[in-house]
Every structure is written in C-alpha cells, then in structure tokens.
C-alpha cells in the first residue's frame, strides 16, 4: 500500500470499517415501506391496454363498452395526452399516439375504483390497427428500405451532444478518430476482424414498476414511485409537461431494486395525467411481472464489429469499431449508452490510432434504458473477446497482451485524447492480482469425468459515470438537540449500501459514533438535498463528496460557536469524541451537545443556533463532447468522466462437452477503487455483481418471435440465476490507489463489478476447447452449437470417453 493510504488508514475511526448496512434490519423484518405497500384512501386503479402488433397505425379505438363497466371512472388514449417525453431525444408518447412501435406498448389506460373493474374494462377496449412491416434487428433497421419508426425524428427536442439522424432509424450517432488508423492498419503485422453480439435483457428487479400519483386541484402533483432518480423524474416531468419544478413532489420510499431500469422517467407522467382525467383523485398503476416485461424499458442489445491491428510483439497499434446498440422503440437512455461506449470504445487499452462509430438504432421492440454497466458490458464483451482472439493468433498469453497494452496513470491516452490522470487506478495491478488468485499460468486440474474440460480466462474493464459535465450532487447535515445528526441526500440506496457509507463519512468527519448518524432512507424532492441521478456508480464519489463538504461545513459552524464559549480561535479547537476541546489542553472542552443548538450561558443568554451543514459536489473540468469528433466543443481533448474505475475479472470454468453446460469453479475480481469506505459492502458488490454478470452471460435473453412478440415474458422462461447457480468460490480483491478528489480517495464500483465477466467466461471456454463464442448468452445449447460448428470432433471424443468409461469401470 502507498504512503497516503497507510497514514490515513491508521487514523480513521469509522471510514474503512466493515459496518453492516444500516437499513438491513428493517428491510429484513419487512418494516421498510415500498411504493407497493402504500395506499391512499379513495385511490383508483389504472390498467393499460397494450398493442397486439409490433408496428402499425392505430385506426380506431372503441372503448364504449369499457365505459359501461361498473366502477370505471375514465378511459384515456394517447390523443388525450399530447406530450412528448424523453431525456435526450423527445420522441416518446405517454400512450401511443397514431402509431404503435412494439408488441405490448401501452395504447389505452382505464381508470376505475377497483383493480377488478379496471381489468374487466380494459378487456373490453377494442383497438383496430393497420399493421406496418416491423424491424427487429438493428442492422436491418439501418438498411435504406427499412420501415421508419420515427418519420418526425428531425422535429423532436434533443439535448446537447446527441445526434439523431432524421430520415433513418438512427436515434443518435457518434464518431471519433485518434491518430491515423488507416496508416496504422497498413503497418500492422496482423489485422483481425470479428463480429460480436449480445441480446436485449431485462433488469428483473424484484419490485415491478409501480406509481401512485395525485394531481391536486391547486396544480401541484404528488407522486409516489419506485424510481431510482427522483430528481430526474421531477425535472423531466417539469420539462415535458411544462409545470414548474416546485409544483411537482416526488416521494421515493424504499425501492425493490433498479439496476438502471428505474433511472429515468417512466410511468410517472402517465399516472399523474390519469389522476387529473379521473377528477383529481389519486391513481395507482402497478405492473405485474408479465406487464413489466412488455412495458418497462430493458437493456440495449449490441452488434459490434471490431478490427484490430497489432505488431508481432502484441502491441496494438490500431482499433476500428462500430457499435450498433439496439434501442427499441424509443431513444431514452440508449442514446447515452451508445455515447458512453463511443468515448470508451477501445476498452481499457492505450491504442495510438483509433476510429470508432457508435449508434443507437430504433427497432420495433420495447425501448432500452440504463442497465448496470451502461453499455460497457456489451462492448467489453466484444473488446475483451477480440483481445483473446488476437493473443491466440500471436501466440501471446492473454494476461501478457493485456498488461502490454493497459492504460496506465499519467501516461495512457483515452480515445477522446484525454490523458489519464496521474492518480488514476492501476489496471496492471488489477490484472496481476486477479490472475494470481486463480493460479494463472498453472494448468487447471483434470476434471473427474473425462467428458469434461477445464479452462481459465481473464478480461479487463474500465468505466466511469456517464453524465453531463455539470451533474450536481448536494447534501445537508442537520444537528439535533442531543448531538445526533440527520443527513439528507438525493441519492437512492436500492441495495448498493451507499447510505451506510455516507453515514460513515459523516461520522468520521464529525467524530461521532455511527449510531448517532441517521441518513434519511426515504426521499421527498421537496425536503431532501438534490442529486442529479442515482446512476453510473457516482454516489459514493459525488454524494460522498457533498456529504463530506456538508459535514465540514457543520464542523466549522460548531467550532465557531465553541470558540465563543472557550475563548479560543476556531483553528485552535478540535472536535473529537463528541467534544470540542482546546488543542494541546484536552481538558478544556465543551460537549458537542452543548453547542450544536447554539450555546446557552448559565444566565440564559445564547450564542449561535442549530447547526446545519451544507455541501455539494460538481464535476470539475469535464467537457461536452462533439458527437462527430469526441473532442470538447473547442477542439481540446474530450473529458467526459469524473473518475474511471479499472478492474480485472478472472475465472476457472468446467465445461461438459456432452451437454454444453459451463460451471464457474472459481472467480476472482480485482478493482482499484481508491479507498474502500466500507470493505464489507464493497465485497457485497463484488459478489452480487459477479452473480448478476454470470446470469447475463450464461442465461439471460429476451427472445422475440418473427412477429415481434416477446416469447418469454415471465420468469419461467426468462431465466435468472438462482442461489444454486452461484459460483462456489469467489475471491474479491480490493486495490486502493487513491484519487485526490475522491472522498478519502474513493472511486465508484457498483457497475464495474459486472462488466468483463461474460468475456472472461468465454475466454476460459476458448482456453478449454479452442472454440470461440461470439454471442451471449452462453447457454448450454449455444455453447454446444458453437462447438459443433467449430470443433465437432470434441463432442464425438466426449461421447467416446463416456462409453470407454463403462468399459473401463465395468
């Protein structure tokens, strides 16, 4: 460990300690309240009528029979809700207007005084469509004769830095160039080109989307929602409905998971408007799991083309990639996913000559949004597989080729021309530690059954928050009469453990025991401090810094009051163990409790008052990016992210050549996070992220029929990992090279723990069999198919081994 880390860890009392999550008990006991649990007297129920075709014109909607159902209060169609939504491109209808874009898109909403009545009425709504040809594959959607999903793309509102191409299905397109790739490809000793794919997947958060909204007669709107980023919900609603921010109040109770799927604006404006149409009565919309599969946004799929040029010694000199992200029916966050993949297109490698194109493309499927990793798993799948293919072509060890090309602090240059900061994380250390943990270089042990094989694989990753250069965070630290504090932040903890780490930061700064710090679990946008969003692994860094600043602000105010009591200048006082004491004379003190609400002299006079600290964090020296160059608007290097967390993930697997089933025998993940505020929670992220990434890599895929119908809208056929699927051995490795502007040196982690694992598994499969997998998920059938295509003799050999087993043992 380095000098700084050594010194600080000796002096920390709360930061760096493995404190169990402070919201754990009430979650485990069932006392934590979710939007699902809430009820308002007189509340109505909404039910959505969904499109039964993938693409088409709405000819006629007949809801006369629905209105006759007893208890029905209102029936609302898209035409009644003339607003366009969308965070980066304003392309989204509240309910489909004129045209439906996917099978399952909400077309009509019914509001009734009971769920039964709403469901009965919804079944009576008749919608007539004129079907249009549907396009499901983003590459098909790029063809000139492909059906257009958004003929009015050119007229939509768009955020700076986004680049929709009117007259096409391209929701946004980006391109960048660094060095001279054409020349470098000519000079390369080897050039390899490959195509990789990953499907759209679902977040499968435990709590399905649900919203209660109450449009009040005074024009304020109250919303209770399972939303990750309540301030973004408020801002985007305000912008799209034209209602001032203070008139919209978002209440965010506990959330049953989000993983990015609840990052943006989803059903909230619809339910708010339904409340108005229902006569200013509160309305609830709650999606069943199946409805959630059809209606709620999913993760982008990708088709990736990569061309790599390298020298014989393994040094990569040229990279050319085109990433085609499947955005589904609307742009939503997918256009920013494509953007994030664009400016980080090379993966964590220092490549002098680069040409990258990335785009989000409309298709007739449910729209795509943020998903833990924000496009990085998708394009790292391509980059990290490609690198192994290159390594084998050159006869170089996969670990060595990564070390040779790794982006290193103070030296490496990112695709946007930005030089990596000197106190950035160390990819080389992550790679070496992860490799060591699975005995890299030692051949795996022989499996017991001769029809199985084993292999090892490694893959590297990097990612930082994909956010605008002015994405703010703020915090309020409020002292109570007894010297305890309430902390108000804007971030949402739906499992990451953030509020516990934030409590630790406050306790550390104010010299308080953690029990005296309460971070408010619930959030109301009219009470809590602001943060832009809970996305991009930004909370520990940004909200952490804001909390740190607020705690220091409170401390300054405390010392000012104590200074008047003890008659010593504030800089000569210190705050520790819930006392303010004179430096050097630790017996001259006043207790914290005596000063945090102002000090009261024995005669009743007072000085000071209740202490409230405020703080904020703003990204510094970050830039917008020109979508055609990747540079800042003034042509200087583009600087998109406030930090980059590097990591490496390594696995040893066993593959059954008879069935194609792969099992992870051991997994090691190493991440340079600067400083672990709470190592226990960090490890929790590393374990949980590995399971989720494994699940995506091996099982998960939204499957569509030719007609665009989702074939697996349920958990019977959309498979996610279960307890029994979890790898038996997982080794978390925390590396701490601090970043100067992080809180105590910390960087974010929550997404990084996912990104490279599927590629590591595929690389291990290659190591075991010599068979390349280009497509996720690696289901037994898909693996077996790849073996059959590339090395059918392996299956025959395995069968023979099985039969010989009988002869030998029998």
């Amino acid at each position, binding site marked *: 460990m380095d000098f700084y880390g050594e010194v600080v860890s000796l002096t920390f009392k709360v930061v760096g300690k493995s404190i169990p999550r402070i919201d754990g008990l009430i979650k485990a006991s069932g006392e934590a309240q979710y939007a699902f649990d809430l009820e308002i007297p007189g509340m109505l129920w909404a039910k959505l009528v969904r499109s039964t075709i993938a693409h088409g014109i709405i000819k006629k909607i007949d809801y006369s029979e629905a209105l006759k159902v007893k208890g029905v209060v209102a029936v609302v169609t898209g035409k009644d809700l003339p607003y366009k939504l969308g965070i980066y491109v304003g392309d989204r209808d509240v309910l489909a207007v004129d045209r439906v874009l996917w099978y399952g898109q909400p077309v009509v909403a019914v509001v009734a005084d009971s769920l039964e009545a709403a*469901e009965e009425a919804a079944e009576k709504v008749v919608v007539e469509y004129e079907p249009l040809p549907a396009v499901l594959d983003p590459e098909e959607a790029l063809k000139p004769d492909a059906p257009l999903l958004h003929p009015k793309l050119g007229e939509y509102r768009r955020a700076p830095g986004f680049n929709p191409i009117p007259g096409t299905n391209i929701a946004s397109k980006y391109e960048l160039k660094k060095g001279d790739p054409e020349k470098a490809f000519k000079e390369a000793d080897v050039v390899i080109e490959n195509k990789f794919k990953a499907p759209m997947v679902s977040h499968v958060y435990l709590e399905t989307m649900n919203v209660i909204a109450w449009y009040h007669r005074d024009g304020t709107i109250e919303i209770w929602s399972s939303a990750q980023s309540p301030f973004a919900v408020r801002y985007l609603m305000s912008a799209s409905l034209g209602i001032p921010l203070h008139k919209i109040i978002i209440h965010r109770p506990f959330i049953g998971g989000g993983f990015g799927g609840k990052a943006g604006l989803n059903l909230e404006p619809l339910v708010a408007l339904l409340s108005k149409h229902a006569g200013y009565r509160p309305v609830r919309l709650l999606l069943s799991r199946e409805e959630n599969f059809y209606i709620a946004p999913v993760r982008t799929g990708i088709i990736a083309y990569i061309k790599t040029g390298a020298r014989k010694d393994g040094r990569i000199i040229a990279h050319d990639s085109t990433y085609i992200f499947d955005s589904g029916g609307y742009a939503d966050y997918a256009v920013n996913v494509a953007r994030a993949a664009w400016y980080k297109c090379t993966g964590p490698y220092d490549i002098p000559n680069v040409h990258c194109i990335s785009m989000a493309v409309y298709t007739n499927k449910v729209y795509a949004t943020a998903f833990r990793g924000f496009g990085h798993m998708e394009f790292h799948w391509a980059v990290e597989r490609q690198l192994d293919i290159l390594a084998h072509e050159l006869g170089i060890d996969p670990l060595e080729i990564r070390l040779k090309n790794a982006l290193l602090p103070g030296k490496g240059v990112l695709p946007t021309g930005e030089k990596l900061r000197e106190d950035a994380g160390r990819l080389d250390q992550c790679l070496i530690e992860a490799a060591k943990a699975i005995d890299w270089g030692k051949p795996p042990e022989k499996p017991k059954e001769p029809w199985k094989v084993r292999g090892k694989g490694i893959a590297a990753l990097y990612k930082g928050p994909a956010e605008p250069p002015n994405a703010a965070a703020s915090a309020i630290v409020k002292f109570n009469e007894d010297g305890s504090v309430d902390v108000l932040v804007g971030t949402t903890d739906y499992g990451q453990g953030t509020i516990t780490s934030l409590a630790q930061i406050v306790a550390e700064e104010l010299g308080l025991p953690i029990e005296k710090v309460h971070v408010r679990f619930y959030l109301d946008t009219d009470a809590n401090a602001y943060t832009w969003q809970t996305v991009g692994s930004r909370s520990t860094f940004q909200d952490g810094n804001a909390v740190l600043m607020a705690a220091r602000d409170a401390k300054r105010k405390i010392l000012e009051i104590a200074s008047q009591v003890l008659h010593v200048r504030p800089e000569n006082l210190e705050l520790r163990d819930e006392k303010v004491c004179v430096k050097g004379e630790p017996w001259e003190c006043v207790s914290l409790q005596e000063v945090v609400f102002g000090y009261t002299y024995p005669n009743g006079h007072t000085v000071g008052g209740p202490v409230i600290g405020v703080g904020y964090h703003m990204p510094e020296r970050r830039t917008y990016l020109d979508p055609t160059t990747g540079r800042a608007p003034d042509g200087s290097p583009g600087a998109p992210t406030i930090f980059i967390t590097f990591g490496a993930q390594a696995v040893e697997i066993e593959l059954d050549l008879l069935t194609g089933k792969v099992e992870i025998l051991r997994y090691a993940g190493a991440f340079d996070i600067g400083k672990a505020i709470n190592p226990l929670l960090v490890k929790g992220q590393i374990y949980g992220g590995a399971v989720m990434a494994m699940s995506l890599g091996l*099982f998960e895929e939204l499957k569509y029929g030719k007609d665009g119908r989702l074939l697996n809208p349920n958990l019977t*056929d959309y*498979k996610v990992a279960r307890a029994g699927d979890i790898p038996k051995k997982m080794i978390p490795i925390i590396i701490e090279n601090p970043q100067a502007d992080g809180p105590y040196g910390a960087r974010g982690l929550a997404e990084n723990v996912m990104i490279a694992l599927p590629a590591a598994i595929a690389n291990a499969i290659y190591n075991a069999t010599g068979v390349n997998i280009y497509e996720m998920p690696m*289901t*037994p059938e898909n693996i077996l198919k790849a073996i059959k295509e590339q090395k059918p003799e392996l299956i025959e050999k395995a069968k023979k081994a*099985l*039969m010989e087993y*009988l002869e030998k043992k029998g």
Partner: protein
Amino acid sequence: MSLILPKFEYYKPSTLDEALELLAKFKGDARILAGGTDLIVDLRSRIKKPKAVIDIKGIKELHKLEYIEGKGLIVGATVTLNELLEHPIVKSKFHVLYDSVRQLADMQLRNRATLVGNICNASPAADSAPALLVLDAKVKAVSKRGERVIEIKDFFKWVKKTALEPDEMVTEVFIPEPPEGSRGKYYKATRNVEDLAIVGVAGLVAYPNEPSKRIVRLAYASVAPTPIRIYEVEELFKRDEPLPKLIDEAVNIALRKVSPITDVRGSDWYRRHLVDVLTRKLLIELFLEG
C-alpha cells in the same frame, strides 16, 4: 397476465363424496385445486376459466402416504412432493421417483405442489411422469359413477390432456414395488439450476450383468406431446451382447421414437442431442451401480 384471479366459485369440501358431487354438478366446468402451483398460474393467465374451483386439501382421506411391504406405495392426492421426499422408503426403494421429485422445481414449491397435481396437469415436461412410467404406476380415478384404475402409460393423452372424464378426479397413485434389485435414476437437462426440463430421462435397471434376467426401462419428459416410455428398448437388453453395443442401439431406437419440438427452452436439434447423451450417461451409471 392479469394481476388478479378471474371470478369463480370456491368450494372446500371435507369429504370425497362432496367433491365428487360438485364435479358431477359442474360437468367439467370445475377444476380441482391441490397445491395450486399449476392451477393458479393458469387462472391468472386466463388459460383456464372454470366456473368452480374445488380445493381438496380439506379432504383428510386424500392425505394418505402408505407403504405396504411387498405390494407398493400409495400416494394420496394431497401428499406434497416434500412429504414424499421425506418418507424414508421413497429414498431407499423408489430411487427413480425420489431422484425426479428431488429435481422438480425448488424447495418452496415442493412444500405445496403434489405428485398427483403434477400428473393431472399432464405437462409433457412433468418431472415425476417418466419415473412413474418406468415404475408402472397405477392411477385411481373416481367419480360418482364409481372408480377405475388407469395404467400410467394410458393416463397421458396429449399436451395437458389426461384420460380423466370431466366428472372424475384422481384420489391416489399406486406405485408397485420396483423389480427386485433394481436401481433408478433421473437426468434432467435445464438452462439453470431451477427450470423445467429441456429433456428429462428416467431409467430403471435390474440385473445388468445377467442378460436373461436383465431389466431396462427408459422414459422421457419434454420430447413428445406427452411423457413417454420407450418399450421398444426393453427386449433389446435381454440379448447377450456387449453393453456398449446395446446402448448404441437403444439410443437409436429412442431417437426414432421421440418427436421433440423447438421452443424457448431448446431446439429440437438440442433435445435430440440430449436424448442421445443423457440416455447413454444414465444407462452407464445404472449399469455401473448395479
């Protein structure tokens, strides 16, 4: 899928006669509710819209799990899968049944789901069905008109269709004592640890090393419209020929008899491949154990 159940009349009789009375009264427009792990799903998705639901969990006489030495095992209609697994005789004698039920769904589900419900649902993927097929189980069907015994091989008629008449219900399944010295096993290929079978294979083997006495039975899930037993392989194994050769032939017969489809769980190609390798593996293990 709807959030709520459709409207139906709910009955919870406490005697079998009452239940049979209701079945007769509703003439096929009533469904029996045992564990409900299939029925509730079908109701919520409106695949089934019965007028009445008859909950049989209150009928004491159906909660019968009894082993009669030398004869066999009686499993009543409300016996849950976990109750079955916990019965020591099931583990020690009815290996193939134990092995298949052990792999059916998960712990929570098996706390509710019943064996009889599994076969009455008549899914081609029913995990207990191949085991019951190789064990020659007998299904007791009862109605107001009387009772009859249906051989399990005649019980499954088509996807989700049984030989039951609309007014009949199953009161119990009888599983005769397995052949002396026999061993059984169930292989289930799945996408992840908890899944419906892509392919399920049940095998029962006795006297593997004495061709004249040798017994080999194979049955499959998820390879045809119903669970199927492939009788054609059984004579084959009476031949005094090297086992690998017999296994090769058995696999070929099985591959001719199955008719798998392509669905979200797997392609017909993969299912055929699984029939091939799982049959081999299963037989080899059973031969080696024997």
